[in-house]
């Protein structure tokens, strides 16, 4: 594209500091200035050609061509294609470049302000303020006060968190839940008393921990042994049920046997 006939002979692209642009609008503005054309009347075909040539150049130099640059190239090509179409005679004022021009003018304002900032910053970088003085005779027990901003606080908190995280690497915690036989016996009796008949296997399946199911199963066996519960099966291969016998159940009686 750079060998375009309109630019031959000799180099067709103005020399440019390729990597120095702060964005696609900056590059576009630069090309407009270099070509000594007005923002309000951009020769869109020529500028588009140069713009895309620079993107190619950036790629060849292995510079990262950000998506925003490619997007602006698409915008330029779109405008170019629209300007090739005959204008609507009813609306001759409509210029496909209008929106881009407005954006460029707005951007240029801030770019100019930034240049002003740069001048001031360069000049003022040479002014050295006094370093913050530490009061020489501050009492030992006096709590020094410092002025901190929200950003300081957040930053410090983040450091603290990072430090904590480093010192306390995430570990897999293994819980050993313990279940007492006595508790399970009481629980089972009250459940059976409430339900009348309880499907045992179904109940055991609802526990989250294997140990809990085992303890409950043991409790059922134990309660059957002391004849508080009755275990039965209504039909062969069907669910095993538990129900209450007539025998009174008082945990106080057997407390010594089934302690926690």
């Amino acid at each position, binding site marked *: 594209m750079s060998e375009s006939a309109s630019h031959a002979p*000799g180099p067709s692209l103005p*020399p440019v*500091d390729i*990597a120095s642009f702060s964005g696609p609008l900056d590059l576009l503005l630069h090309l407009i200035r270099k070509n000594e054309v007005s923002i309000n009347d951009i020769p869109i075909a020529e500028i588009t050609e140069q713009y895309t040539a620079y993107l190619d150049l950036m790629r060849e130099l292995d510079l990262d061509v950000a998506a925003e640059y490619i997007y602006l190239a698409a915008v330029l090509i779109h405008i170019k294609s629209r300007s090739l179409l005959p204008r609507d005679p009813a609306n001759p004022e409509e210029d496909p470049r209008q929106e881009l021009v407005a954006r460029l003018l707005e951007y240029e304002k801030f770019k100019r302000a930034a240049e002003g900032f*740069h001048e001031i*910053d360069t000049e003022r*970088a040479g002014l050295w303020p006094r370093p913050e003085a530490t009061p020489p005779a501050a009492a030992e027990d006096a709590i020094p006060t410092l002025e901190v901003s929200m950003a300081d606080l957040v930053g410090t908190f983040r450091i603290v968190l990072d430090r904590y995280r480093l010192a306390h690497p995430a570990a897999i915690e293994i819980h050993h839940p313990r279940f007492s036989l006595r508790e399970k016996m009481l629980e089972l009796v009250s459940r059976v008393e409430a339900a009348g008949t309880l499907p045992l296997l179904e109940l055991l399946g609802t526990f989250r921990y294997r140990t809990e199911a085992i303890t409950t199963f043991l409790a059922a066996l134990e309660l059957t042994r002391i004849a508080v519960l009755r275990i039965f099966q209504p039909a062969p291969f069907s669910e095993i049920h538990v129900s209450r016998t007539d025998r009174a159940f008082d945990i106080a009686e057997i407390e010594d046997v089934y302690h926690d």
Partner: protein
Amino acid sequence: MTDVRDRLMPVLEALLFSSGKPIPVEAFAEMLDADAAAVEGALRGMADRTNAEDRGIRLESVGGGWRFVTRPEFDGVLRKYFEISERSRLSLAALETLAIIAYRQPITAPEISELRGVNSSAVLKTLFDKKLITTAGKKPVVGTPFLYKTTKEFLIRFGLNDLAELPKPEEIDEDLAAAAEGDPAPLALVPAIHVEGSPPVPEAEPAPGEEASTPTRPISRP
């Protein structure tokens, strides 16, 4: 009046000498149990005297307060003494973003990116880390993005007392108009890979530090 002034000057000088931060007039007035106008007068008198004399320091009014700073011509000597060869500078992108925030605050990151035509989140982080900007709540729109504003550090760095001292947008417009007529050479903050015409030469010298500042060389058109 002059008496009060002469009495205030030494104690003001002592306070200013001991502080690295600009001290507001009201703080002086409260500490010294003096009239704010008298303090202001004394400070102005001291500034005039300090700045007129052949001194290495000057008294400046900045960030809503007063402080001593060294004169710019001694920057080189001071850097030599403190062994600072190059100081970190703001990139063109950072300055642009800062200018947009300064004039349009409070403003959200997407609005800044829209104006610049490029994603600005990395630059915002730099400015935030340098404490030149801070958040100013969230905008009640979809996604509730953060609003950003400039800080007191920004005012101090750029020698302003408040935002009203920023150059007016009209002044920038005039400046623009003048620039369009005169020399349109853009300010190059970053020396980078120079490429002449086509075909491009890929073996470019390594780009020096992004923050350094070198003038662009004149451009000759064929």
